[in-house]
């Protein structure tokens, strides 16, 4: 049983609780305040910036992390990044950007650091009782809020594979988030496992730092360089969206012909679906390193044994260091699973329009999507919609009920069929379809009420 400093919950009236002060949380706080809500934001760590802050103890940053989507496609729509920054800013620049966003809109004074939300309980119909557990001391506090927005992200609970014999393996094993410094790779025979963006980036770091690098990849994926046709790749592809439909397919194929042929030459099979279906790997250096032999590609690991690693194709190796760049599991600890539509054996939330709780009207999640494009603008429009929704709900219950029906009908339209085997594919959406759907939702919310 938990001990509470006071039995009675402190009522915060119409205020909204935001959980997490990473990029999504900050955007949520700013958009809610712009719509006139009082906001309390709780951050488990002692710093803001979430995954972009290396001081955050759950930070997933690895050596030399850079954005994989370009500046113009990643910046928050109403707060552009400085235009003298490079096309692909570094993690440190992202942190600078988020810090100046928080400072510019005066968000810091609404953030409570070192406060973990251990649970939220629905009370009095649509309100919530939030249990805040401070990092120091054990007296939890109870507060009541009109609404809760969860922005805890999905890049902090490492997803570790389990290969036969892994518990008896006696070499060094690190998850990508534990590899903070490229000097750990120096002079070693490194095995990098995982073909996502982090795996490919770390393989490239190992290619120049380690004495040898083997990259174990289970399945093919789209590989895009960071520049296509003289422009940042995501911008070049996005720009084709402005063309008429019959031309778009042709122009996209023409743009992707080079990268696809290179991938084929390197023995990577490309999924049938275009690179927009699931997050492509965006790294222009990787195939150069594969091409000059500093990275050796292998298939899946069959089993580990002592110091040996055996691959499915029968080859064996003896690495000094294994880096598992196997990504993260989506994990929401703040709210009871059933409120987010997690049921049965699936651990993935089933949300309406990828943001609203299917059970309660005033519970929403920001940023729990993998759109395959820059996620900050998506979160901006999500929280814009959530803030407007809370606003409409307060003033006009009839419109709110109609809106609810629309959201339910929208929810099915941008699912990417779950073909991928890795955890993040459960969160994948088709960016264009999802944005169109968000646009319809926002339009409905911003309409003048019918008199």
């Amino acid at each position, binding site marked *: 049983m938990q001990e509470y400093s006071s039995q009675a919950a402190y009522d915060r009236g119409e205020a909204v609780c935001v959980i997490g002060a990473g990029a999504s949380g900050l955007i949520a706080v700013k958009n809610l305040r712009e719509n006139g809500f009082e906001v309390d934001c709780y951050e488990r760590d002692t710093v803001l910036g979430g995954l972009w802050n290396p001081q955050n103890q759950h930070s997933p940053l690895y050596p030399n992390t850079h954005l994989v989507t370009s500046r113009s496609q990643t910046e928050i729509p*109403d707060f552009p990044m400085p235009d003298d920054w490079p096309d692909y800013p570094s993690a440190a620049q992202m942190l600078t950007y988020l810090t100046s966003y928080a400072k510019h*809109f005066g968000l810091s004074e609404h953030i409570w650091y070192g406060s973990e939300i251990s649970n939220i309980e629905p009370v009095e119909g649509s309100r919530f009782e939030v249990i805040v557990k401070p990092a120091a001391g054990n007296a939890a506090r109870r507060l009541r809020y009109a609404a809760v927005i969860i922005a805890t992200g999905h890049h902090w609970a490492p997803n570790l594979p389990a290969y036969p014999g892994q518990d008896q393996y006696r070499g060094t094993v690190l998850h990508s988030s534990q590899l903070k410094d490229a000097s750990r790779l120096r002079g070693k025979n490194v095995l990098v496992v995982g073909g996502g963006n982090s795996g490919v980036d770390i393989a490239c770091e190992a290619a120049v730092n380690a004495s040898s690098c083997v990259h174990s990849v289970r399945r093919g994926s789209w590989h895009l360089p960071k520049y296509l046709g003289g422009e940042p790749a995501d911008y070049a592809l996005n*720009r084709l969206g*402005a063309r008429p439909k019959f031309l778009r397919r042709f122009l996209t194929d023409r743009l992707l012909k080079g990268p696809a042929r290179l991938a084929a030459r390197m023995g990577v099979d490309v999924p049938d679906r275009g690179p927009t279906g699931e997050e492509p790997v965006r790294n222009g250096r990787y195939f150069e390193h594969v091409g000059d032999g500093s990275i050796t590609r292998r298939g899946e690991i069959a089993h580990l044994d002592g110091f040996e690693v055996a691959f499915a194709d029968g080859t064996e190796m003896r690495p000094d260091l294994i880096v598992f760049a196997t990504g993260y599991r989506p994990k929401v600890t703040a709210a009871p699973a059933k409120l987010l539509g997690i049921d049965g054996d699936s651990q993935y939330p089933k949300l309406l329009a990828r943001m609203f709780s299917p059970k309660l009207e005033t519970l929403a999640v920001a940023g729990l999507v993998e759109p395959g494009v820059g996620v900050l*603008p998506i979160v901006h429009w999500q929280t814009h919609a959530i803030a407007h929704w809370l606003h409409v709900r307060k003033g006009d219950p009839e419109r709110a009920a109609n809106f609810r029906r629309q959201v339910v009908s929208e929810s099915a339209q941008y699912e990417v069929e779950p073909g991928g085997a890795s955890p993040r594919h459960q969160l994948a959406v088709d960016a264009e379809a999802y944005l169109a759907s*968000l*646009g319809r939702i926002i339009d409905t919310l911003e309409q003048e009420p019918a008199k």
Partner: protein
Amino acid sequence: MSLTAWVRRARTPAPVAVAREFAYLEPADLFDLDIKDDPEASPALCCTGDPAGAAAFNALWLKRIAASGRYAAAVSVRGQGGTAVAEGGVEARAHDLVQAAVNVPRQAVLIGHREGASWAALAAGRYPAAGLVLVSPQKFPKQPPKPVGNPPVLLVVSESEAQSKEAQAVTDAYGVAPLTFAGSPDEVFKGPAAEGLLDAVLSWLANKN
């Protein structure tokens, strides 16, 4: 800014980046003990259609705004004052203004004079300004974008312009009545008319922000 406007913008090439001339004055820079820095007051960012750019505000505006306890800043958009000439029309100039606005430490009030007023109106469609002050607007867009975050809007025109087409367009777009000042719309940077105008703007700001 609406989602569709953002989607369209993300698909158009960004204007060429230029090094912008940016002048600012903080209340503490005035070395006057009587002036109190007001941390709650929104900073003010000025721009003008005058080719002198930011330098035009040096004579009076920046000092007077800082003396009221606000962070005062002015920017020269491409082609003005100390900023290099670069390609791009009004959209690029609005981009310059937004870039200068995010550089200001806190959410800023945009003050635009002459063509600067139309750039400020476009910028306010992309950046949630704390307020929008349009002084004698010129070449004002027919359908200015809806300002993000619903900032308060102030329109100030000279007495001779009170009935002009521009003033009418702004009134229709934002639903605000113009405030008039005595004097010529091009002589707002110094002289008694300029002081009267500035006092009016600052007292409006003091009430709103």
